[in-house]
């Protein structure tokens, strides 16, 4: 669906959000006690995306040099899960696609005709994903900074349940 492309995000969230709230191979127990509940970067990106989506907010990314590229291709998200406890990510990948498809202005008939390349269409889809996520991150950071204590799981759940336009 997204080919071999993957989204990028605003560099400023690398330290303020991604490194803080994702576990990424560290000691799980320890990091969890510090507010890191997301297993991987892509889980956090999805979280930001859905918040932006549900709030119907999009925010353009800064120039390329201010972005952090996301090396893990969307197609491979979830593939690193080995435990039986966590289910696969196929459904969430397709949900991501549906949302991007719905909210991206692409003349699909021209794509089908071959007048517009599929590559440029996918690039547009990825841009949509990035913009929703970017708006989501801005909102998350604002809420994190309002807090005096370390965010807990309830905080993350509340943010997304309340994110409705």
């Amino acid at each position: 669906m997204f080919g071999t492309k993957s989204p990028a995000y605003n560099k400023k969230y690398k330290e303020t959000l991604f490194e803080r709230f994702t576990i990424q191979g560290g000691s799980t127990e320890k990091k969890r006690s510090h507010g890191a509940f997301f297993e991987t970067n892509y889980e956090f990106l999805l979280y930001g995306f859905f918040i932006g989506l549900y709030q119907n907010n999009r925010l353009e990314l800064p120039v390329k040099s201010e972005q952090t590229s996301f090396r893990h291709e969307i197609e491979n998200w979830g593939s690193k899960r080995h435990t039986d406890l966590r289910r696969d990510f196929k459904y969430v990948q397709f949900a991501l696609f549906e949302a991007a498809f719905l909210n991206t202005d692409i003349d699909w008939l021209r794509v089908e005709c071959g007048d517009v390349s599929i590559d440029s269409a996918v690039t547009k889809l990825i841009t949509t994903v990035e913009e929703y996520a970017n708006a989501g991150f801005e909102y998350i950071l604002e809420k994190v900074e309002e807090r005096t204590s370390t965010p807990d799981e309830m905080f993350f759940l509340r943010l997304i349940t309340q994110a409705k336009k």
Partner: protein
Amino acid sequence: MIINKVALKNYQCYYGETEIVFGKDLNILLGANGEGKTKLFEAIMWVLDLLNKNQEHSVASEKAFDELEVGQSGTTSVALHVTREAGDRENYIIIKEKVFFKKPDGGIRYSDVEYKAVHETLAGERNFISDGKSTLNDLFPYEYRQYSNFEGEDALDIFDTSGGGDDSLVNLINLFSNAEKIEKYSKIFEEIYLKAKDAEEKASKSNSKIEREYKSLLSERDSKLIAIRQKRELQSETQKELTNLSKRISDFEKIVDNNEEFNTLNEMIKSREDKIKKQDLNISTEYVDFLFDRKWILMNFREVLEGFNKKYDALEKDRRDAERAHIQKQAAAKALVIASHDFTSLAVNVPDRATMQEMLDEEVCKVCSRRAEKGSEAYEFMKSKLEALVKDIEQTEEDIPELFKFNYLAELRNERVLFEERVTSDIDSTVDDIKRQFTLNTSAASEIKTLQDEIDDLVAKKSELVGGKGKSEDSYTSILADYMSKLKQRSAKEDYLKLYTSDIEKLKFDIDDLESKIERINALTGNEFLSLSKKILHSLSQTFEKVKNEEFDEILKDLENRSNKIFDEINVESFRGKIKIERYKLVSGRYSVGVEHVLNNGERFMDPNKSLKTSVNIAIIMAVSEMAQSKEGESFNSYPLIFDAPISSFDKDKSSQFLNMLKSIPGQKIIMLKDFVSKENGVVKVMEEFNSVSCDSSYLLSLKRPFNREDLTTMETQVRKL
């Protein structure tokens, strides 16, 4: 170590000199109540330096003392003749002795204790060693010694951790595992890591621009490190105090141990604690995981799904329409071309195929409204026109160029169907699922609160009961006050412990934060090589920590298996359940080991009888002993286990079965038993059933008749070999 002989001199009821020789496996000393078993047990404890200080002062034989004139002195001593292993020719004798004097007022005065040892070499030389205790520690280290003796049936319960953090089993497992060795490596790596860190920091300091910031980060981190160390000390201190308090509290509780009501209260508390554990499991707060695993992230997705479906369906329709229009357009163009060299008025597809077929079937030309019977010229004309039309349609379909080169939308169709099948109902039920989880959590939490309140009430009742069992009115009040204050202290200590633990967590977080800032400066100043080395070393030391824990768990599993095997052997034909041994984390973050007696379905064994409880304990002790001897990789001495009346609750059949099983477990066992003896006309006799017990050596301990229990100078235990 093997005890080959114990030699007593004027030790309490053992007047004069008494020697008892032991074999390397099972040794049994029989005796009725009050005939000297426990005194012999205590004598051995005395020389092993395991006797309570308050039991130590009156060790001399009353009879021997009575025979002294004023100013004269006598000696009390206990000597153990031991070898490192069975059959060893190098002997050691460990002697503990005290001299006693008769004072002018007829009272007794003791000299200080003297601990001596004699080493008999292979060549038969005798070396006297003045520090007998260090020889004892060398032959029989204290870590093992403290777990080698068991006075009475209750003493077997050394692994009960319900009193709050008994470390017996943890200590024992550490002895048998290589965990300590691993820890050494882990410490070495930790040290090298610190050195690497130091080097890295020194290198960073050389850059003057950032030096100030760097220095302040370092000093802040160091002060946090000092704070964390102090908190850890407090934590460990409090944990120790807690352990002591729990022991004291359990001592108090023993006062009323036999009280039925007290036991019932304990059971009620335990059952509520079990329920709390179960309710704890019901509480799930991994909300972030649930976002993905339980698809909560799609909670507001319904609108998107509908929007997508609408857009997709419209696109597909547009695509079909465009395709149809394209074909029609092409076909019409083609038809016009065909029409130009046939009838000028009608295209090849007018009338259409169905109409043509209808006209042929009815043998009527509906264009000119005339009949056209089969075989007529008009009929043949219509037939050839239909054939031409069919041929033309086939040709047209082949010839029209395709409008769409790709069919991405069709590829999506399958995925879309799959997605809808899998998640549509989930999307709708997500909000309910979240609510359900919250309801579950809330009800479990409130259930826990109720149970905790009930426990508090029960504990209060228990305290009242403890007070009610005092020996006199005075001690009654003071015991109760003391007990209550201990309970209060324990709860306060527990609160402190939690506080320290959370403080430490917070400090760790701050330190991590500072470390990452320091790390960034290190990276900026080009110390990547050092940074990398440091990281590698750090991960190595963490790996060692992990291996240490795994090793520990492996040993626990081994212990559990062995314990169950022995447990099964002790209780061959009876309903028994299983022994479960598990590691769990204490509030302080340290590990402790819990022993539980469970049914085969894993539930806790409620109200096991005393004999079953005892066999659980014995099975674990034997398993530990067995493990000690099968330890690989280094020469490992076995140590004797000494029991006084360990199986009082067993019936005779079970006792002999148990003793025979014990014989088959390697290692020296010295057991004092009141079973298998009977008194006939004041004479102590060994019962016939004892013949079925196989052992290395057996003795009957009995007081020399006649004697007067009120007059200790008449009490003298004699030892007869059976």
